[in-house]
């Protein structure tokens, strides 16, 4: 998966979870939990959706790497073998 593919999937799933926001408008370095008012249930739902879409295994201990858009893109890209 390329970074662009990972970003496209991530932004789509983010807007499913928080349709009030346009994730393209969010600063990619900002904590999405703050920027998009996302709670732990939303984070879990995001992880479930990303796992389903990409097959990437995201253990709970890696959630901290998923809290910014750029972090999540890098994580998904690396874990899917680039």
């Amino acid at each position, binding site marked *: 998966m390329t970074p662009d593919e990972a970003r496209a999937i991530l932004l789509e799933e983010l807007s499913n979870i928080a349709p009030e926001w346009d994730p393209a408008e969010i600063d990619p370095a900002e904590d999405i*939990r703050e920027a998009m*008012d996302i*709670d*732990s*249930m939303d984070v*879990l739902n995001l992880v*479930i959706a990303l*796992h389903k879409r990409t097959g990437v295994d995201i253990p*709970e*201990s890696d959630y901290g790497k998923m809290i910014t858009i750029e972090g999540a893109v890098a994580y998904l890209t690396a874990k899917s073998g680039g």
Partner: protein
Amino acid sequence: MPSLGSDMEAGTLVEWLKRPGENLRRGDIVAVVETQKGAIEIEIFQDGILEEYLVDIGQTVPVGTPLARVRGPGEAAAAVEEAPRAVAEPVATPLPMPVAPAPSALKAAVTGALASPAARQSAAQRGLDLAALKGSGPGGAVVLADVEAAGVAPPLARKSGGLDLDEMRKAIAAAMIRSKREIPHYYLSHDIDLAAATSWLERTNAAREPAERLLMGALFLKAVALALTKHKAFNGFYGDGGFMPSEAVHVGAAVSIRGGGLVAPAIHDTDQLDLDAIMAKMRDLVARVRAGTLRSSELADTTVTVSSLGERGVEGMYSIIYPPQVAILGIGKVRERPWVVEGQVAPRPLVTMTLAGDHRVSDGHRGALLLNEIDRLLQEPEAL
């Protein structure tokens, strides 16, 4: 029009989901009503046949107004002089606003026409009469493709599940003003060591697919519910006749809404559910709160409320009781703090749990016993 909380005076009918002539089973969702808490799905509490609508789409009626006439099993057919069995408790003056009968093409698909099961199901969903469709299957049977080709019956009425946050704020204000005026609150606070619960949760989740993982919130709800089965002075309703404890424990899980607002739908019989079931209910409720589609029973019979700030919260929250309930638990964010364990200071994950109790029903001593029991239960997470 059922009462969906002590602050509700009226509701607006926005959609009928069942048509006259349809069979209803207890628990079926028959209508959608717009309230200050958003669009609420109204369930029926008896089996029967929907005879006629008594309230029109778009009409706003007071709580207690019958919405529809329902004929129970075994009752005589459609005699107007029959005592009406209504969705809500009948009031003295039923509103004389029956709508015109549905056109025959919109009748529910209860027919002897030859059709495949998939076609029957799809026709029912679309509100189409199978007998009016031309079948292309064996022996002229109606198959799914025939139903799909026929399209859908014209919708009765549609309304997005959007929430009116200004109206919701007014509803919260009314309930909280009443609470602060009528309920003599007392408050207790207790720090709980979550080391055991946290490490159990980490171990459990490490072996699970994301969709099967649990959140700490599910453990909190189960521990609270189990503790309430022993401490009955915190679970029930305060009415004109005083306190009525509830045998069932229906914990309302407060869910916040982006943009402001809050609603606390019930997880029915929380004490009877395992953690996986509670987690599934929480996920479903959060999704439906955000979509604005809750069910009437989820708002009408909550026996106690739990409000949790989550990981972006602060240490503690002192909540206000939602009448006619008599207690609310506030749960702060789990944070790492120095704690004395067996004579040594050690970093431990702590959570501050608060209880607001109703002094007309209980006092601080009993409240402390409740919080201590919740603490004890959270020390044995595998038993939850």
